[in-house]
């Protein structure tokens, strides 16, 4: 059964990633996985790296590898501000593995509890998520 559609806009610092009408948005906030339907109550949340899914219909699903960002729902519109969002086929697993290796190295050399360590841990989590998406393993 078709659900009511609502407008969604995805913006990154490099420009608009996607905008259109969808039945459901599936993503992850720092609190947990979230499925947004039309007429969701206003919310402001932080997003974590995950496979973002936009259900244009139940079977027509658009997927993105989504980095950290923010989700704002207001007046039945959803705005996702993400640092990066890539179509899974645009991901380069080799490049991601190299980035993951660098993050792991930094994590090892950083002092425990330092800002550098926190940053490296965040990078590591992001690249691991992206690698899983690139290799088709939906997370």
């Amino acid at each position, binding site marked *: 059964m078709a659900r009511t559609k609502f407008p969604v806009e995805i*913006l*990154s*610092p*490099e*420009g*608009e990633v996607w905008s259109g009408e969808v039945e459901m948005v599936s993503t992850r*906030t*720092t*609190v947990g996985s979230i499925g947004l339907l039309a007429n969701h*109550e*206003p*919310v*402001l*949340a*932080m997003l974590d790296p995950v496979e973002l899914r936009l259900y244009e219909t139940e079977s027509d699903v658009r997927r993105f590898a989504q980095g*950290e960002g*923010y989700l*704002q729902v*207001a*007046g039945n*519109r959803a*705005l996702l*501000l993400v*640092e*990066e969002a890539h179509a899974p086929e645009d991901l380069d697993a080799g490049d991601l593995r190299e980035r993951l290796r660098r993050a792991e190295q930094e994590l090892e050399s950083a*002092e425990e509890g*330092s*800002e*550098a360590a926190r*940053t490296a841990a965040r*990078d590591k989590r992001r690249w691991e998520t992206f690698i899983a998406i690139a290799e088709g393993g939906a997370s």
Partner: protein
Amino acid sequence: MQTQRDVKDRIASVKNVQKITRAMEMVAAARLRRAEQRIESLRPYAGAIRRMTRQAAQAAENIPNLPILEEHEHVRTVALHLVTGDRGLAGAFNSQILRAGLRAAADHEAEGRQVVFYASGRRGVSSLAFRGKELAGRYVGFTDRPGYADAREIAEALMSAYVDEKVDEVEIFYNGYISPLRQEVRRETLLPLQQATILEAGDEEEDDGERPEHQALVEYEPGPEEILRRLVPDYVEISVFRALLESTASEHGARMTAMRSASDNAGELIEDLTLEMNRARQAEITQEIMEVVAGAEAQA
């Protein structure tokens, strides 16, 4: 006296150079247009982040005490990040950044502060290394088309150094983009971040009427203070990204201008050489006539 042949060869080689500089000018013009678009593309995102921050700050009633907002009591070490290009042939583009950075470093050192260099772009990295400066961070290979991930990497390194108290202040030097013909060296203090910067309305602010109507009813996941903790560092990332984008646009603009004047110079050189060639040809003709006349006179 140059012979006709010599001058002809020189004209041919100058013409070749002119072809190359023309082509480089055209490539730079095309890349400049793309770089300008990318500066434009950042505006909606930066504006939305600003609006979101103000909304969260209102809900939180005050901005939490974040380490990147706090001034260090004593400024002993200053980090200077120089934004240059990976390639040269762009007029004063790279050298004016290096000059400004080195002068600022000398000023800091004169006042007893240590200086730590960071640089993006091969030109800056190699020039600083050549001058014997140690680099705490080097970022190369993207200045033709910097991505947000590149900016984040730089911003994260600078913020970590600041928060972990390895440095007490961070300045960034880059070529600000005004127009294809005009770029200016900008020097900005990145850290500590000023609270005023966060709450003031930015120039990218466009009142598009998308403000949430029932702010009081907005649900925050997690609380607004937690969200601010992540939003505030984004300002530093966005500032670095904008500096990289403006620098790239400036680089293409500077290269376009440099190559245009190189093409113009080549054109002038070709005109001069053509005149010289004509003179050489005329001299040869005169010489031949003199010889014929002299020969005829000898026979008479």
